[in-house]
């Protein structure tokens, strides 16, 4: 049955609580659009969220959802997926949630190749707690906890995901909405761990601290600093390479585990026979 975004977003719960100019609404709409385009049944979707502004995204969804502790969305999602591989499991995390406090779960979910889609709203700071620096804050940005400029190099989420073995890795920005929708749809369709690093704007904190005061200024900043020439992108220096970086086929955890279960059934019978001396 054809679907639209309001089969997934609860209209009554709008407007979003996010600040004016925040890109989270754009990302959430893109996700709902991807669900609709793929005609997914809400009962078969589990959205797992962590803590942060983006971690509140499930408040607006009519799918199943599991809102967990800070950084643990992928670990909880791993439990859901391992028990029922038929569920479409989508983890929504911010840059703090996904690759800072939750960095260990992120690389291991990628390594394990769990069939989970991770959509990271990457706004370079902790919005919910007042704009402190995160593991993706570009150097030398100014934040509530780096008033003299951050001296820590940031993670390139896509490079990290690729190195950890994720079979689908893409980056878009909230300015490039068509691209964003397409990548999210591709990621959801991918069997295996898929990552979409969405460069988002936080005019309230990151923008205000870094001379990008209005949403318009921030959007222009995304437009002017994004490139689809990968060699031209340098996230460490506020140049955002956007595009699909990895798109390959690789057996996911659940497929391999089902095979393991078959082997275990046969082997455990043999083992019992061996021990009973037959």
């Amino acid at each position, binding site marked *: 049955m054809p679907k639209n975004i309001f089969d997934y977003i609860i209209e009554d*719960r709008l407007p979003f609580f996010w600040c004016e100019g925040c890109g989270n609404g754009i990302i959430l709409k893109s996700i709902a659009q991807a669900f609709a385009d793929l005609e997914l049944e*809400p*009962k*078969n979707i*589990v959205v*797992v969220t962590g*803590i942060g502004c983006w971690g*509140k995204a*499930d*408040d607006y969804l*009519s*799918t*199943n*959802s*599991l*809102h*967990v*502790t800070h*950084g*643990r969305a992928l*670990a*909880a*999602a*791993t*439990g*859901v*997926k*391992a*028990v*029922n591989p*038929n*569920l479409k499991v989508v983890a929504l995390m911010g840059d703090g949630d996904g690759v800072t406090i939750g960095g*260990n*779960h992120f690389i*291991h979910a990628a390594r394990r190749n769990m069939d989970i889609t991770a959509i990271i709203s990457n706004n370079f700071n902790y919005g919910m707690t007042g704009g402190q620096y995160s593991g993706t804050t570009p150097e030398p940005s100014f934040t509530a906890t780096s008033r003299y400029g951050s001296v820590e190099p940031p993670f390139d989420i896509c490079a990290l995901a690729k190195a950890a073995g994720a079979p689908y890795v893409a980056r878009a920005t909230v300015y490039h909405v068509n691209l964003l929708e397409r990548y999210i749809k591709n990621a959801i369709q991918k069997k295996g761990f898929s990552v979409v690093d969405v460069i988002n704007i936080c005019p309230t904190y990151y923008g205000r601290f870094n001379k990008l005061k209005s949403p318009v200024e921030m959007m222009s900043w995304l437009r002017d600093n994004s490139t689809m020439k990968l060699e031209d992108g340098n996230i460490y220096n506020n140049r955002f390479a956007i595009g699909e970086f990895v798109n390959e086929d690789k057996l996911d955890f659940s497929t391999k*585990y089902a095979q*393991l*279960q078959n082997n*275990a*059934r046969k*082997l*455990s019978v043999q083992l019992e026979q061996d021990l009973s001396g037959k």
Partner: protein
Amino acid sequence: MTQEIKFLQGNEACLEGALKAGARFYAGYPITPSSEIAEMASQRLPAIGGVFIQMEDELGSMAALVGASMAGAKAFTATSGPGFSLMQENLGLAIMTEAPCVVINVQRSGPSTGLATKPAQADVMQARWGTHGDHAIITLCPTSVQECYDLMIYAFNFSERFRTPVIFLSDEIVGHMREKVVLRDDIPVVDRAFPQCEPNQYKPYKAGDDKVPPMAYFGSEFIFHASSSMHDETGYPNNTSQNADKVIRRLYEKIYDHRDEISITKEFETEDADVLFISFGAAARSAREAVKMLRSGSIKAGLLQINTIWPFPDEKVKRLALRAKVVLVPEMNLGQIINEVIKFSCGTPVFGINKVDSTIITPLEIVNKAKEVLQNA
């Protein structure tokens, strides 16, 4: 059907009990002295269609249990001190989301990494209060291999019945001890109550009189929200103070209102005991031996063995302490459960027998202390 009798380690019996109770998901991180449980789970679970997954740490293990539980599986993990500390975070998640699961802590000597292969009973208060915020918790302590098996089934039953994590507080002695165990079939297995309403009427945190909400699973016709943050019956956020009060009280009362159903204790010769021992886990075994030794020397001693340590069996302690001349609490720590005993001892003098040298308290140490305090009583 004849029941199998085996000679097993406590840790192995825990796994047998878990499988009997219907456990089908294990997520964990290896740690001495609990690793046998993970190793056996990794062999046995996939052969019966279950899943074993070795997570990157205990934070993730505990989070994965919550996910698995919400997807409909009976889920468990096993760990020891350092890992149990990491699990506190998402133990709270399991309490708040009301995700049934069982966490085995085979206690070892601490603090921190301490003595990895040596026993202790020093996580009693951590089990009660380790995760932040007001909450109730169910904690079971085995003293024998048979109890590892039996109480593990009860641990799952309580977790399912009350939609709550249950802590199974074993120790290195009981975990590694081998004894005869009957893999009995006569303990009925309890499953979580599935909602009886229409799917579109389902509210995941709406409870009836018993304060335990029926539980659907992800992928069923019943779509639901589960949340770590304060939520109302719908699972969606509700930050009013009335709601917070209601939720926190219900989470507490759903366990404390049913403490008679949860409380498991055993009494040995308590009827006429002048000297009452109150103990749990490995130390309770020594106390039982001490009862025999004292009785053979005509001193009326008895033991209250606590298997359900949380909620604490305060009524039982009151009743028995009132009749005794002295109460002694042997425990392999510097005094944890004794403070609970003192609260309910009704004026009867209470003495601790504490040992933290990473060896079991011996019956003779208990006998000597009992004689000493009796003399001064």
